[in-house]
């Protein structure tokens, strides 16, 4: 039998095949299919076109996170349509205001995805769950509609690039800096159609939240998925959350990779992606004055991200003229931050704390940029016009860098500030 990568093994198992190889077209059984308040309405329309019904009511998750709490009448109507559909089809995992969070932080937290799973989501950042050793990838609404009807999806088996991580990250350098560094290295289409498989003894030094951040942005290198090995850190996270059987797949020792990129974590620096592409990464810059900071999103809205931001903002003030918006990714993160006193640190510093929502990340609401404004953001995309006016600019950074920039009013790393 031919050797396989970790991703290929998961796909083979879900396609009921002894082995698969890169380029092969397969149909795989899904453990979960996800849609949000933007993509679900389109999927529902498609499903209704063929008078389809949801096949597995426990394997669909609908999360109302992008324009919720609803920002206008149109988005309210979209959520209403999805809510009614969820009720009618008796969807078990429907998340609305009150229990919702940003989908890619919420699903792992709620134990709906875990090691060995095969998951699709009508949202490009569905690749996040690779942090737990799952194969997960973003698709469109029609794929999602087909998945709801059949419980399956078609895939082209991807080739893979291996990222061999060594050493450990220095203080103030995070998973966000690592993934930005990688995207800067290989480009926004550097892993187009491929898997990014992370390995090496440096993996153990990365927290689970770091790994979520890294896998979250695999799509920003064009990848189909990003995936980490399942080690004690991943198992510890899934314990008491994930109640299905944990299936651990390891790549064959002689699995084929298109190339191997070796990264010494200890050499990395705080990294920022300049407008208007995530590959425009820099570690040095001249003075860049900013007007807004966003700390949140499916990339960096988890508890460790808020802890890092709070570490910087403690007993400091957000610079006059800067709007600092903190968005815990889920209700659980919100509550934890409340218990730990982080919310008080943010509010005393002059930041605001919002209910979980995607909000400004996609230019939805809760912090849209005016013409010419600059924002340091812990989100994942700095495309032209992504967060507002097409002359506005987004600088993608870690929570440390974002918080430090809020204090100085210009793009600043935490190291410089301390």
């Amino acid at each position, binding site marked *: 039998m031919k050797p396989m990568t970790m991703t290929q093994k998961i796909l083979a198992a879900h396609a009921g095949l002894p082995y698969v190889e890169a380029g092969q077209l397969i149909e795989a059984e899904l453990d979960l299919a996800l849609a949000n308040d933007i*993509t679900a309405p389109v999927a529902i329309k498609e499903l209704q076109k063929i008078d389809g019904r949801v096949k597995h009511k426990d394997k669909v998750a609908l999360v109302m996170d992008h324009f919720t709490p609803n920002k*206008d009448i149109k988005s309210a109507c979209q959520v209403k349509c999805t809510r009614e559909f969820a009720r009618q089809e008796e969807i078990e995992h429907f998340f609305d205001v009150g229990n919702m969070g940003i989908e890619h932080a919420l699903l792992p937290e709620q134990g709906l995805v875990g090691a060995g799973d095969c998951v699709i989501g009508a949202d490009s950042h569905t690749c996040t769950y690779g942090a737990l050793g799952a194969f997960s990838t*973003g698709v*469109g609404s*029609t794929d999602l*509609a*087909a998945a709801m009807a059949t419980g399956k999806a078609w895939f082209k088996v991807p080739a893979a690039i291996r990222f061999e991580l060594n050493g450990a990250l220095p203080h103030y350098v995070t998973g966000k800096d690592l993934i930005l560094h990688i995207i800067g290295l290989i480009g926004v289409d550097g892993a187009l159609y491929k898997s990014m498989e992370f390995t090496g003894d440096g993996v153990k030094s990365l927290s689970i939240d770091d790994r979520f951040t890294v896998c979250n942005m695999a799509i920003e290198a064009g990848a189909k998925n990003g995936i980490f090995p399942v080690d004690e850190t991943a198992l510890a996270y899934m314990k008491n959350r994930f109640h299905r059987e944990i299936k651990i797949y390891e790549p064959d020792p002689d699995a084929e990779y298109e190339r191997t990129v070796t990264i010494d974590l200890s050499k990395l620096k705080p990294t920022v992606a300049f407008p208007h592409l995530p590959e425009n990464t820099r570690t040095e810059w001249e003075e860049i004055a900013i007007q807004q900071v966003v700390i949140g999103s499916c990339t960096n809205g988890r508890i460790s991200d808020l802890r890092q931001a709070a570490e910087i903002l403690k007993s400091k003030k957000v610079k006059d003229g800067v709007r600092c918006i903190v968005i815990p990714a889920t209700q659980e993160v919100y509550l934890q931050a409340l218990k730990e006193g982080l919310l008080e640190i943010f509010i005393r510093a002059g930041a605001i704390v919002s209910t979980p929502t995607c909000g400004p990340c996609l230019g*939805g609401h809760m912090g849209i940029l005016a013409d010419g404004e600059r924002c340091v953001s812990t989100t994942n995309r700095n495309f032209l*016009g*992504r967060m507002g006016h097409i002359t506005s600019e987004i600088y993608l950074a870690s929570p440390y860098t974002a918080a430090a920039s809020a204090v100085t009013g210009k793009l600043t790393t935490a190291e410089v500030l301390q």
Partner: protein
Amino acid sequence: MNVKGKAHIFGDNVDTDVIIPARYLNTSDEKELAAHCMEDADASFVKSVEKGDIIVAKDNFGCGSSREHAPIAIRACGVSLVIANTFARIFYRNAINIGLPILECPEAVAGIRAGDVVSCDLSEGTITNETTGKTYRAQPFPPFIQAIISAGGLMNSLKK
């Protein structure tokens, strides 16, 4: 299936946020989406695009979000084909699944200028620049994908 129209040229990494900005995603109405197609890349595009026209772009077309609204908007504003060097993978799937023809053909991309009249035989993958008289050959789809397209998209292929 044959298509023909004039070419509109775009560069590298045309992302889904410029194809259809998120501020318009509070609807899935095709006409409304079409009215804002490519707005942040070229605000004059929707005014000049005519039925049958062809989009020609460089690398990684459609990168970014999984919004199917992007290929839907392109199709709804009359575009009959997108030719690019490469497509981002979710966009690629979405276009196939909704029945928007797309072809990867760097030679054609290099040989087509804005306003050239281009025709294409989709089943053969042959692209002809009628303005210059040059013909290019793109890789036709694998049979599995052709089956989805000939059924008129993924949902129709399930119906049968």
